[in-house]
């Protein structure tokens, strides 16, 4: 794998952080969504996975191996308990006057946002550094 392939790995990292951001935004935005076709909104969660880990194949520097890339395997519904809030006037209230609010962990989501932001930045920085290394490599012999 040359340096150009490294850019792909960083791009995969950026994509994964983007997916996490989408899900965190959706969870926060729907934190009080009570009505939809299947009842209250169910908080979502991104399931990540790494493509083939190279240690299994004993790779060497010129072995043409591929480095593990993160992938989004799926977006699942979390098994969070909905919270019941007493609000008899609410159109989605049940016969006892309780409304089922989705069990979105807003504090946890905010912490996730911070980690997503740092992860995105780090991948972007690695991308930049790799690009500068490629530029330096391509400039060989061009200055004398």
């Amino acid at each position, binding site marked *: *794998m*040359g*340096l150009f*392939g*490294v850019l792909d*790995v*960083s791009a*995969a*990292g950026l994509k*994964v*952080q983007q997916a*996490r951001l989408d899900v965190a935004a959706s969870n926060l935005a729907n934190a009080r969504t009570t009505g939809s076709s299947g009842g209250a909104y169910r908080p979502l969660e991104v399931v*990540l*996975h*790494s493509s083939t*880990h*190279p*240690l299994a194949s*004993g*790779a*060497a*520097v*010129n072995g043409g*191996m591929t*480095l*593990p*890339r*993160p992938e989004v395997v799926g977006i699942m519904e979390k098994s969070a308990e909905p919270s019941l809030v007493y609000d008899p006037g609410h159109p989605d209230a049940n016969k006892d006057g309780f409304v089922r609010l989705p069990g979105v962990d807003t504090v946890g989501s905010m912490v996730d946002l911070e*980690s997503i932001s*740092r*992860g995105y930045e*780090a*991948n972007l*920085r*690695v991308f930049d*550094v*790799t690009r*500068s*290394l490629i530029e*330096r*490599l391509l400039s*060989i*012999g061009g*200055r*004398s």
Partner: protein
Amino acid sequence: MWQVDPTLDLLSKAVDVAAFRQAVHAANVANADVPGYQPLEVRFAPETSESTVAGFSSAQRLEEAAEQIPELAASAQGHVHLDEEMAQMAQNALRYQLLLGAFERTVGLLRYAAREGKEG
């Protein structure tokens, strides 16, 4: 392979290793949030540490050093430490640029010799 200069061989090998390290740092940072991901690192085989690469004294040792192949290994850390990865990556990027500079200078010297010391 026809060999111009053992220093060039060693330098190009070292550039390869630095590029490899960059790839490994990129993979570690990209996979930092994947549950159960085992961070990777670049290592040399036990009998050929990197210090022997640096401590050459003759052309033959230079050739030996150029033949050492780095390997991927699981890092001792259970998960990715973003700060350490970024710091090591910065260091490695500097080394990469330094090595390319040394490569260019060596080529320049050879060119100078081939022109019998004439400038231009």
